[in-house]
């Protein structure tokens, strides 16, 4: 039985002359359990929408990229180890949206992955997660260890 997800939302009000929107920070700790991914994604996406993220981004892009990052963290980062967890932190402000997903694994080298749109990878049933993330958001960063991915979407 998995513990229910607990999401924390912080709103940082700023002066109206400085910024039109308050900065919102959302955080949730996700267990290493593939069955929880959909619920975690839905929870974060709904709060993103309520925090001013565009409906299309909240309905689709945030869901796809967060799902990818969580699946990678659970399968390849934490290697399905139930004693480990994943931290998701989201920041929404006037500049846009930042999604930070950190696992407790050893990390990996993102440059080591082949292009999944070229043969023979095109016919493979895996290896498209990070590629999709890079295609759907404006910027992707990793920490040095390679166990944290930051996905950034600039406000249009």
């Amino acid at each position, binding site marked *: 039985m998995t513990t229910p997800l607990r999401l924390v939302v912080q709103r940082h009000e700023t002066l109206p002359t400085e910024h039109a929107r308050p900065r919102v920070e959302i955080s949730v700790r996700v267990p290493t359990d593939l069955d929880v991914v*959909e619920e975690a994604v839905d929870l974060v996406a709904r709060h993103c929408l309520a925090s001013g993220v565009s409906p299309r981004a909240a309905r689709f892009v945030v869901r796809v990229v967060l799902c990818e990052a969580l699946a990678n963290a659970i399968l390849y980062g934490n290697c399905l180890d139930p004693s480990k967890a994943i931290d998701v932190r989201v920041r929404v402000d006037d500049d846009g949206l930042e999604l930070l997903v950190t696992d407790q694994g050893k990390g990996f080298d993102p440059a080591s992955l082949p292009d999944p749109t070229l043969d023979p990878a095109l016919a493979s*049933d895996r290896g*498209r997660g990070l590629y999709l993330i890079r295609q759907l958001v404006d910027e992707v960063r990793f920490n040095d260890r390679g166990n944290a991915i930051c996905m950034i979407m600039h406000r249009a």
Partner: protein
Amino acid sequence: MSFTVRKDEASGVVVVGVDGQLIVGNRHDLKKKVLDAMESGDRKFVIDFAATGYIDSSGLGVLVSLAKKVREVGGDLRLAGLNEDLRSLFELTKLDTLFTLVDSVEEAVAAF
């Protein structure tokens, strides 16, 4: 989220509807439904995405895997009802070159 399976008796096409998401947590359920139908002799499949919110790379991967298995036995697996967002996932990954993407289930069934 769930999968619905119905067979168009006239054409012999099995239509699997994806209600919700096709992602890492439920991809094996879809795989089992299609493989069970193959075991029963079915060879023509349409996956209906008209009621689907989003698909992740695991979901795309299971479609690639199933299409390969179905084609190996002389059948085909086609995709229908993808909205603009879902279709973009296939275009970005170039998987639109591996699949027949059609607007509706009726169109997909008629094309077999």
